[in-house]
């Protein structure tokens, strides 16, 4: 069995047998990797604390037939603030879930890895209302399925000349729809122009600027759209945004 070294972010873990865990990693060099971490659920484990979801690690692994085996771990960054704030923790879990769904096993994807580490760093230092939405849209961009937002996806009229106003998003067709085309066909969602403009800004390279958007109805709309767009691409529901959003909303002050 070959031994190799890689850098990774822990996406999630599963309990295995008495005290072990299966860790799902996004590695820098090999894409998604599943590995066994032995004994990590014992309180005295040296590895355990470093193999928690969201941790950025350097590790040594033994190549296995189905699962690799973790032999050494060093934490590059444990993102402590993420573990101490409910909104940050929810955002981190939402990002990790999305990456777990999109990443391919043993298929290197350096841009995805860089984007994940970048998002966790930003979340740790300067959380933003649009961080998860920004990440989802960028992820769709990497997947090559970002929506067309500069012209109507049905009739092709460009929005730039001011001839048409884009007023909805058709996730099935993959783009914005103008007011004239709106009544036809299903799968469309009415969207405020400001929300579409914000999505266009994120996809157009001004994520940093878009992240300044404060929490509120606009950020919520763009986040909702991003969740639906990613779910349409994955052809499955995401659990974290649906489950924890509602719970956090239940708490009076959030």
């Amino acid at each position, binding site marked *: 069995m070959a031994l190799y070294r890689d850098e990774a972010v822990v996406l999630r873990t599963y309990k295995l047998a008495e005290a072990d865990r299966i860790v799902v990693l996004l590695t820098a060099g090999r894409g998604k990797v599943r590995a066994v971490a032995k004994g990590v659920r014992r309180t*005295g484990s040296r590895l355990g604390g470093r193999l928690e979801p969201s941790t950025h690690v350097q590790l040594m692994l033994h190549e296995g037939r189905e699962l690799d085996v973790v032999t050494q771990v060093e934490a590059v960054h444990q993102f402590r603030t993420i573990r101490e704030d*409910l909104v940050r923790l929810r955002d981190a879990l939402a990002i990790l879930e999305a990456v777990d769904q999109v990443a391919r096993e043993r298929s290197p994807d350096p841009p995805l890895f860089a984007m994940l580490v970048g998002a966790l760093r930003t979340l740790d230092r300067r959380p933003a209302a649009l961080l998860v939405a920004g990440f989802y849209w960028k992820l769709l961009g990497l997947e090559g399925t970002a929506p067309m937002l500069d012209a109507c996806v049905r009739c092709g009229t460009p929005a730039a000349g001011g001839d048409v106003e884009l007023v909805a998003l058709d996730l099935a067709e993959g783009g914005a729809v103008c007011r004239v085309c709106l009544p036809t066909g299903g799968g469309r969602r009415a969207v405020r122009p400001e929300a579409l403009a914000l999505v266009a800004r994120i996809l157009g390279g001004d994520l940093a600027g878009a992240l300044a958007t404060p929490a509120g109805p606009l950020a919520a709309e763009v986040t909702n759209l991003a969740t639906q767009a990613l779910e349409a691409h994955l052809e499955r529901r995401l659990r974290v945004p649906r489950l924890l959003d509602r719970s956090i909303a239940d708490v009076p002050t959030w």
Partner: protein
Amino acid sequence: MYASAVQALIDELGRLPGVGPKSAQRIAFHLLKLPDEDALRLAKAINTVKARVSWCRRCFNIAESERPGPEAPASTECDICRDARRDTGLLCVVEEPKDVVAVERTGEFRGRYHVLQGAISPIDGVGPDQLRIRELLARIGAEGVAEIILCFNPNIEGDATALYLSSLLKDLPVKLTRIASGLPVGGDLEYADELTLGRALEGRREVAP
């Protein structure tokens, strides 16, 4: 394929946590080879547990009734809730009944418990609604709880549950604490990970002169 009775046993064993198809097969054949009385003792133990044991209606710990009978389970309280010497103002909230056992072993805690029967884990589809959180809220006023100690696993699910409960409870007139997380006794400092050591530093206390 095995005879259907054997296959049914393998299927049932395979549903147990941590038992894969191979192990299920091995255990089934082990049971087949056992003398009748040994195998039936297991069946009887399962029967007795199902007849006599239920969740405590107050704290959701395991509760055992004195003798098997139709009157028992639903209205039962656990030994700890029935113990009049327990401090009712102090509530230790844990994830699972096995955590009650772990805290009891320390002999340090004289209050009562509340078992959530899990921890928040959105990735696994477990949110606050799947846990005994509503029941916890109902107990605070009804039992005059003055202090709640959160006693969860020091992992991401435990953290999520603690953060959620602390925001939920922060406007209630109850003192909320969480057990300190730190270094295992007998371990070497140099092997501690940064998060554990950071938390241990944060939870430091004054050394008596």
